[in-house]
């Protein structure tokens, strides 16, 4: 958006007005990526995202390891959401190998997945807070994240990279007294979430700043193929957990959170509302879970899939996360493609930032729920 030149002042070239800013990869407001931003005064004329600084070739690595060996390294793109990124892989491999998952394992998977969603969203929210200059909102979620991490540690033994889901169930059963502990911490967590509402989401300065900025219309959200919170904040009711329920999500009681505004504020609010729903899901799942039973179907050594391909998707913290696994009958997959929400939402960035003020850049950028490491894979 180049503002028309005032009469009387003649510039030689339009380019003279425009300054190129390299936001990243060593910029405190960029993450592991670079945004090449051109500004005209305080307005952004164009934005060209340049990801790839943390590309590690996870998909290529997966072609050289067998189905079990792939588990620990496939969760590396999002270690804060590691259960959710392994979930579609496990579902796909179960389809390929024809495995049945025990009922109790399904519930444990749902609980772990929702806890991990909270861990991810809290971390994301913390960075959103510090991007907007709200340092309290950085410290609080990072502190409260510990409670969810402790629960996941009790389940899986690892604090961040759990490698908890395996094809055929989960790696190990829940520890003793897990249910009481989990319920107690979820109660505390729900209390804290209400305080976040007071200090952050109802903050007049925040509302002034983010409401009406970076508006993504419903049709644009669909056309650009966005997913997750970006899509739901634009008024599209689409949640893989509801629309294509996997494991036991069709038994559980929860609602899809949809907002209509499509601006930065709505985009930042949908993940928060999702966390409240996650608490409901965990409580419900703890109630309905079989109290004992097997948690894992035993695999044959070195399992082989047929000549087949499977595409499974789940709802992760950043939206629909799909795994496309092609098998050619060998113990290793022939091709694994991770279709991640971050990468799909990246396309919004040039569209939303064009014409925005430079001060809105962090608010719009991080509200897209974009995780640079996951997008690069």
């Amino acid at each position, binding site marked *: 958006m180049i503002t028309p030149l005032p009469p009387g002042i003649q510039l030689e070239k339009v380019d003279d007005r425009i300054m190129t800013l390299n936001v990243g990869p060593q910029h405190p407001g960029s993450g592991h990526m670079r945004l090449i931003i051109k500004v005209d005064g305080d307005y952004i004329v164009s934005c060209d995202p*340049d*990801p*790839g600084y943390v*590309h590690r*070739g996870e*998909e*290529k690595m997966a072609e*050289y*390891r*067998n189905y*079990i*060996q792939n*588990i620990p390294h496939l969760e590396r793109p999002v270690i804060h959401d590691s259960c959710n990124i392994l979930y579609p892989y496990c579902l796909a491999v179960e389809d390929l*190998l*024809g*495995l*049945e998952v*025990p009922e109790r394992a399904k519930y444990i998977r749902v609980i772990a997945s929702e806890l991990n969603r909270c861990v991810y969203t809290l971390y994301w929210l913390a960075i959103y807070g510090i991007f907007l200059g709200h340092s309290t909102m950085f410290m609080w979620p990072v502190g409260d994240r510990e409670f969810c991490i402790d629960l996941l540690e009790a389940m899986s033994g690892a604090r961040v990279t759990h490698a908890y889901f*395996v094809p055929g169930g989960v*790696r*190990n*059963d829940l520890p003793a007294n897990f249910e009481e502990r989990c319920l107690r911490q979820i109660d505390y967590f729900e209390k804290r979430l209400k305080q976040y509402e007071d200090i952050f989401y109802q903050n007049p300065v925040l509302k002034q700043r983010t409401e009406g900025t970076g508006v993504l219309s419903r049709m644009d959200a*669909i*056309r*650009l*193929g966005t*997913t997750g919170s970006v*899509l739901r904040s634009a008024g*599209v009711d*689409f949640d893989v957990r509801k*629309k*294509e329920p996997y494991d036991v999500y069709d038994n559980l009681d929860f609602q899809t959170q949809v907002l209509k505004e499509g601006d930065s504020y709505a985009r930042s609010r949908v993940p928060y509302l999702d966390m409240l729903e996650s608490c409901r899901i965990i409580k419900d799942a703890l109630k309905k879970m079989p109290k004992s*039973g*097997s*948690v*894992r*179907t*035993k*695999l*044959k*050594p*070195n399992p082989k899939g047929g000549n087949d*391909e499977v*595409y499974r*998707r789940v709802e992760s913290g950043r939206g*629909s996360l*799909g795994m*496309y696994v*092609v098998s050619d009958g060998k*113990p*290793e997959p*022939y*091709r694994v*493609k991770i*279709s991640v929400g971050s*990468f*799909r939402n*990246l*396309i919004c960035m040039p569209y939303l930032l064009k014409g925005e003020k430079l001060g809105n850049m962090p608010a719009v950028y991080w509200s897209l729920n974009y995780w640079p490491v996951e997008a*690069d894979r």
Partner: protein
Amino acid sequence: MSSETTIDEKSSETVETKPEIAKKEITPVVEPKFEKSLAEKVVSKFGTIVTIGFIKPNRIRINAKKENILDVATFIRDELNFDHAESVTGVDYPKSKEIEVVYHLGSYTEPQLAKQVLTLATRVPREDIPNPGHDSTRMPSLRDVFYSVEFHERECFEMLGVYFDGHPDNRRLLLPEDWADIPPFRKDFGIKGR
């Protein structure tokens, strides 16, 4: 590569359930009705140009020739109401000297189609000594049909060397600008030590 995995041995205490592969093979595969009707719509429109890869619950695969892929994609968007692409994957088949480009299409507007993922696949020729952008490994871009494939096709171009004709922005996305090796996701690009 080790054939046994240590994780398997740990779970021997849990109750064992046999792998159910054998059971699944016995039951006759029933093709779901809704998915079949969708696939038949495509086949009745294009006839022999397209073939149906498989019809599974919630998943349909349609193979098309790369010359017709634009027409098929436009038909899928306009008549079947699939409105966005979830991913674009390139799969390298060096034995048949082909690279398969797979589009996973989904729909947000049609509630019936919410759980469907339509796989649209096409194959492009593959050259042993690739020269991305200047050899025969090219196909028409679907960017004008599905806007959301823009970045996915850029990724496919740099990773597999498939050039998309008509794509407005055929630059590198993830790889560094000075990458001088062959496209890394081709099968002949080996990882060290494997």
